């Protein structure tokens, strides 16, 4: 139950939840303590679906692909159908995962050991090949977006040499940008600013249609897809080092590739929700394999789980499939049980909670901005998190506007450390001989098949068959090209810097960023040329804003002024701390932007501050502090904990 509450609040994720529970584990007997730990891990990828679907905020890396179709469904007013489908899929995924694991765990050890660093690098490439289906109208643009993601993901310490790249001497960038913030910045931030501008409920017209039962039926209609994705989730989750971050994208890509009618993906196809959701719960089960058998956690949540096991005195290792086999089965099946309970209770909550999408956005927006900032801050608990959020948010707005596939960008970002790390290892171990390893060739073959599947149909009738990730290109082609060209030139400048800075590194640290920067830059230059001299209807030409700007409506305000509300909250927070910052922000927003009366303003502001303060004080969650707290000791509810 606690796991559910924690998971539903974006940014808290599994790690915070487990940390909170840790002190209570003492004094429990081993089995119930383990069950508690497992329960927390299990329900997090279930309950963070709420925010992914309803608000377009990916609560953890496990639910990023869900946003892609879940949020459009909510915008169509079908939130409860999407949620019901997601939870039923989670439930099935969890159970299927447990069944696979039960059969698989005995032979897992030797199987996992056949995956060397070369094979793991190839798996990262397989993940990257999913960009093919997520590129939208222009494949070149999709690949470039992915390249940009890879470059952004290589900021920080080089995996092999520990050299720092593109950090500008900022401490914050030593470990690279946090995934949560990139996810929120790219997806939630642009949607929120967009909705602020339109000022309408998330569900168009405030109408809720599509019922709950329909969602459950969707699962049965697509049972084979769910089953396949659960299998993918378990197996990929079981490979140590790749972790769960790519599972949902691979499942999503798989769903798109194997579907005959692809027109609705990205616009609210229920299969786009089913696939990642059935995979991500199965993945947690798969993630148990390396954690239990090798003591190597596949994800952050698993790392904490392992830490909890150590505190309980249970030793992960080969003994888990011999002398402690009963304990292993207990863990696997309590995971399945927790999934059933978690997904079941979410299923009942789906209907009432989906009403949120009918609320006028001006009332919901301050809460969402608050929640998003809060979630971003939990990434590393530094003020820089909030600044990074705004920066990446603006990038997200630009990518969306100019039709650069944000999913492709995110896949690049997520896979950058794995791809680079395993590439470095593989080169040191095998050099070119890696391509003679059978495992490498098999995965290469799968990648080729996957690319073939996704390119099938591309080029014949682009408009109907490819996935319109960022809207249909035909509607956004414009003769006013200046903004696009400026953006592209900005990118090229950034890439030149990346290229130049990678030249300062040792050969091993340089290999990856240099290659990616060079490749991406040539693609960008190619686009620049086609944009300049090519016809207006070439797929590189894309600007969602040109129509809006030509008939601009002064009451709506530009994207910039709406995004400014984020900056306002963050600036006040920097001065007086988060709680007081939220108070001032709410009052300001509700009076100036939403034009509410004082009663409503005060009621909502008080509600917000109570919510945030009780999180801080009862769940011991850290909040951003401002300059003020360095000079004055603030009282209990507002001060530092």
């Amino acid at each position, binding site marked *: 139950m606690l796991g559910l509450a924690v998971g539903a609040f974006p940014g808290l994720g599994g790690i915070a939840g487990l940390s909170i529970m840790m002190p209570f584990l003492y004094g429990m007997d081993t089995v119930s303590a383990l069950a508690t730990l497992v329960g927390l891990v299990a329900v997090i990828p279930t309950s963070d679906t709420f925010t992914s679907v309803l608000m377009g905020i990916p609560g953890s890396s496990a639910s990023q692909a869900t946003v892609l179709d879940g949020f459009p469904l909510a915008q169509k007013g079908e939130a409860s159908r999407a949620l019901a489908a997601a939870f039923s899929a989670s439930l099935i995924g969890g159970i299927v995962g447990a069944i696979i694991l039960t059969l698989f765990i005995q032979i897992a050890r030797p199987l996992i050991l*056949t995956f060397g660093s070369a094979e793991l690098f190839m798996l990262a490439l397989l993940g990257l090949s999913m960009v093919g289906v997520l590129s939208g109208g222009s494949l070149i643009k999709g690949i470039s977006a992915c390249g940009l993601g890879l470059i952004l993901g290589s900021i920080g310490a080089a995996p092999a040499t520990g050299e720092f790249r593109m950090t500008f001497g900022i*401490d914050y960038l030593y*470990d690279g940008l946090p995934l949560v913030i990139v996810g929120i910045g790219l997806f939630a931030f642009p949607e929120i600013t967009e909705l602020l501008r339109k000022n309408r409920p998330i569900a168009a017209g405030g109408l809720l249609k599509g019922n709950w039962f329909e969602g459950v039926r969707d699962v049965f209609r697509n049972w084979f897809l769910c089953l396949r994705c659960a299998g993918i989730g378990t197996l990929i989750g079981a490979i140590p*080092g790749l972790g769960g971050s790519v599972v949902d994208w691979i499942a999503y890509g798989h769903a798109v590739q194997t579907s005959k009618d692809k027109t609705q993906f990205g616009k609210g196809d229920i299969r786009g929700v089913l696939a990642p959701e059935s995979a991500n719960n199965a993945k947690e089960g798969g993630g148990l394999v390396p954690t239990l058998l090798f003591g190597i956690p596949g994800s952050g949540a698993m790392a*904490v789980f392992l830490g909890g096991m150590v*505190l309980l005195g249970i030793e992960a290792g080969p003994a888990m499939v011999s002398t402690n086999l009963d304990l292993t089965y207990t863990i696997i099946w309590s995971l399945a049980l927790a999934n059933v309970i978690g997904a079941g209770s979410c299923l009942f909550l789906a209907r009432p909670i989906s009403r949120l999408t009918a609320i006028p956005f001006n009332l919901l927006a301050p809460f969402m901005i608050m929640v998003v900032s809060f979630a971003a801050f939990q990434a*590393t608990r530094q003020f820089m998190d909030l600044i990074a959020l705004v920066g990446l948010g603006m990038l997200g707005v630009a990518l969306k506007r100019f039709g650069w596939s944000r999913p492709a960008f995110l896949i690049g970002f997520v896979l950058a450390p794995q791809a680079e790390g395993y590439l470095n290892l593989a080169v040191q171990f095998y050099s070119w001989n890696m391509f003679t390893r059978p495992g490498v060739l098999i995965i290469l073959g799968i990648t080729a098949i996957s690319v073939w599947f996704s390119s099938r149909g591309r080029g014949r009738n682009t408009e109907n068959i490819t996935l319109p990730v960022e809207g249909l290109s035909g509607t956004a082609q414009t003769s006013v090209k200046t903004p696009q060209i400026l953006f592209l030139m900005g990118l090229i400048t950034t890439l030149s810097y990346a290229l130049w800075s990678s030249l300062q590194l040792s050969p091993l640290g340089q290999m990856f960023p240099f290659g990616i920067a060079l490749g991406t830059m040539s693609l960008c230059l190619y686009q620049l040329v086609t944009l300049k001299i090519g016809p207006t209807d070439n797929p590189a030409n894309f600007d969602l804003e040109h129509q809006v700007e030509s008939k601009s409506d002064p009451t709506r305000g530009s994207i910039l002024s709406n995004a400014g509300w984020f900056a306002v909250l963050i600036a006040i927070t920097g001065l007086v701390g988060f709680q007081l910052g939220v108070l001032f922000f709410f009052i300001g927003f509700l009076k100036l932007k939403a034009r509410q009366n004082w009663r409503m303003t005060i009621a909502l502001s008080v509600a917000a501050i109570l919510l945030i303060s009780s999180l801080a004080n009862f769940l011991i969650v850290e909040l951003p502090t401002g300059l003020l707290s360095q000079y004055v000791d603030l009282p209990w509810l507002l001060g530092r904990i």
Partner: protein
Amino acid sequence: MIPFKEGGGSDTWGRFNATFFSRYLPGQPTVIVRNVPGGNSIAGSNRFAARARPNGLSVLGTSASTQFPYLLQDPRVNYEYRDWQVLMASGAGGVAYVSSDLGVANVAELGSVIDKQLLYGSQGPTSLDLVPVLGFKLLGLNVRPIFGMSGRGAGRLAFERGEVNIDYQTTTAYLRNVVPLIDQGNAVPLFSWGALNDSGELIRDPTFPDLPHFAEAYEILHGEKPSGLGWESWFSFFTAGFPAMKLLVAPKETPIEIVQAYQHAVTAMKQDPEYITRKPAALGTYEQVTGPAAQRLYELATDVPQQARNWIRQWLRDQFQVNIEV
């Protein structure tokens, strides 16, 4: 404050001790473990150095990864161990082992593979792995480190996959995951790094009384006791990395009563039956010490002779082209 991620060795160490500090510090305060990861613990330690007040309400748990960049004078380090004082210290040990494919049964037989290139999975040249990498070199082994392992666990996995054939693990991980490999006949233990006795000399690790320590291994292979700058530098960094691996520190100006309260809490928790039963599995067999014993380790861990420092920096530059700018 723990300057590492949730779930790692330092985090586990912090959370284990936090439970008992809650119990034995005066007034049974709630002790919260706050993880501030970044830059392999440099970011969090810098932050502690800049912000912590000498009131005993916030203390920092550092590890060998925090001590090494400080000792090597990494320019990113803004913390100074001389501005802190130690409340508690604890150590760890480690055992080196090789793949049984090499056909070596013990250290003495290593001579037969001295010309063969061995592979070792390392986290990076300036990490704690510099102790084993330099150690192998001093023994005269031809070991090529493969950089980029994400942790010691990843190194062990590479060993199990057969990608590397020489490795070491810290005591707990060794007992848990390597001993089964030895029992199956896949791995052969060589030597332990050793431990320090009360007068600071290297002795056999009490957990592994049957294995030679590093200096003994050296003697077996070279026929003489280790000496010279290389050996002295290795010994300094070994001490900072293993016998004094984890340090709990507070700002130096912290009043003596508060420091004593912590020292009493450490002494008291070691009597707690729950501590006694849970500690071996959670933290391993090494004692956590406080007071003068901790002070002695603290000095060994945070102060190396300038000569040793220079020697190591030069070695890193020559061997791995690692330049630590000043």
